[in-house]
C-alpha cells in the first residue's frame, strides 16, 4: 500500500506525531503534557510556514 501526501500534509502529520511524543515524555502532569504538546505542534507548523515564506522571498 502506498500513498502520496503533499509536502504540507506530510509536515503536519510529522508535527502531530512528534509533538504527541514530546508532550507525553517531557512533562509530568496531563495538563502540562497537553500544553507542551500543543506548543511543540505550533512551533513545528509555525516553523514550516516561516521557512516557506523565507524560501519564497529568496526565490523572488
Amino acid at each position, binding site marked *: *500500500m*502506498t*500513498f*502520496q*501526501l503533499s*509536502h504540507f500534509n*506530510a509536515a503536519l*502529520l*510529522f508535527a*502531530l*506525531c*512528534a509533538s*504527541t*511524543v*514530546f508532550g*507525553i*515524555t517531557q512533562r*509530568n*502532569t496531563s495538563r502540562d503534557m497537553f500544553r507542551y504538546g500543543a506548543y511543540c505542534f505550533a512551533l513545528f507548523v509555525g516553523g514550516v510556514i516561516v521557512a516557506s515564506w523565507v524560501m519564497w522571498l529568496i526565490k523572488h
Partner: protein
Amino acid sequence: MAQNTTTVNQRQAASAANSMATLAPLAGWLFPGLGHFIQRRYIRGVLLMLAVGIMFFAGLGMQGKVYSFNVGDLLDILGFVGDLGAGGLYFIARLMDWGSGNIHNAVADYGTKYIVVAGLLNVVAAVDAHHIAIGKKP
C-alpha cells in the same frame, strides 16, 4: 520480628522496582507504548503507540527506505541506528522485506525520514518508561 518483615518487604519492593526499571524500557523499545502499558499508564501507552506506529507505517506507505546493517556511508549507518530504535516494528519491516525505497519519488525521501524519526521517538518513549519505573516521573 516486625523489623525483619519490614526489611524483607522493602527488599522485595526494591527488587520489583529494579526489574521493572529494566523491563519497561525494553518492552517499550520492542513494541511502542508497551513500557507504559505494563506500568498501567494506558492512555499514554496508546498515544505513544499511535504516534510512533502511524509515523513508521506512514513512512513505509510513502515508499521510504528501511536501512539494513551497513558499515558504509556515515548517514547510512546513522539511518540504521535510527531505524533500529523502532524495535519490533523495524524487525517486522525487515522480515517482510518492506521499505526498499524509491529514488524516483520525492515524497519517498520524506518516508525515509519518517521511519528514522519514528525509531528515535520510540527510544525517547522507552527512556520515559524507564523514568516512570524508577520513580523519577509520575
